[in-house]
């Protein structure tokens, strides 16, 4: 048995790679499920509404918020990655751009979350 080695202490770039990869995988699996449940519209309105109805729980609302967060992070970081490969300026400022990604992400979530949670928990 070999003893635990340390975790490599990469900087922002490495962690954003981890984030990008995990969010990408998460979104992919969500998408599989999402297409399947949407496909129920082809079966019957009742079937669809039943499944969708069961999604309208607080737990699912939080999962949904997580999904939006994942997409936002993945998308903004995707733009950063594209920029880094295209422009030397972006490449040299990639660490600042990581902060830009997080700030953009924060703004989006601040705008989205209250309204979404209102919808989800605010009754109706």
């Amino acid at each position, binding site marked *: 048995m070999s*003893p635990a*080695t340390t*975790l490599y*202490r*990469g*900087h922002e770039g490495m962690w954003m790679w981890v984030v990008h990869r995990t969010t990408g995988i998460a979104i992919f699996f969500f998408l599989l499920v999402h297409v399947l449940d949407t496909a129920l519209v082809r079966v019957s309105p009742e079937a669809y509404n039943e499944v969708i109805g069961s999604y309208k729980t607080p737990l699912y609302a939080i999962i949904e918020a997580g999904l939006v967060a994942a997409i936002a992070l993945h998308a903004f970081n995707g733009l950063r990655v594209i920029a880094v490969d295209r422009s030397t300026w972006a490449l040299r400022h*990639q660490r600042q751009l990581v902060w830009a990604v997080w700030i953009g992400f924060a703004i989006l979530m601040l705008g989205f979350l209250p309204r979404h949670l209102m919808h989800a928990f605010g009754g109706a």
Partner: protein
Amino acid sequence: MTATAEAPAKAGAVPSMTVTLKILRFDPDGLDGREPGSEYWEEFTVEAHATDRVLDALHKIKWDIDGTLAFRRSCAHGVCGSDAMRINARNRLACKTLLKDLNPARPITVEPIKGLPVEKDLIVDMEPFFASYREIMPFLMTSGPTPERERLQSPEDRAKFDDTTKCILCAACTTSCPVFWTDGQYFGPQAIVGAHRFIFDSRDEGEWDRLEILNDKAGVWKCRTAFNCTEACPRGIEVTKAISEVKRALTTGTV
């Protein structure tokens, strides 16, 4: 022995201190009753000056405490590329890392670089790394008759690949790359740096042969811009930039 172990220039000003090194050992022979191939952490405490390098501390251990500790080193000032290792969980050259730049309050962890087979303690098998380097045909390729005098090259053209000529093949970049760790099939950033040095040399005519190789499965597209390589390079080479320039050459079809 290194002279730094003794009082360096600003002697009076340099306080001495006690540092602990926590080293990941690998014993291929199975000495002192260990299983051959056992891996274990071992701590050593040495007296050092703040201006000493990690290499000096390793030497103190090897020379005065435990002669079995094995690591590579030669030049001791960051130009030969022998002593890349993981110090406090980051790839660095032991001879270029001053103790004072690490937090001496906690043990300094020292491990072999990651992703290459360990042979003994901090020594890894460098063959796969050099094989990738050889793969990209790192030598000038020209056609036509050899000129009598030098091939001319403007200072501007010379500047285009200056950065990547600095590479000392230390492997700090390649073994810091999370993609390289995953399956070990990626050529790794160093091979791209090595290719870049020739692709952007105006005298060279083999750029498309090399680009062809880097266009492969194990090539440049594996890079996920994690930037560990650039941050690890002891020569300050903008490795990710070089990789980007190679990608750009491949997408635009022009060098």
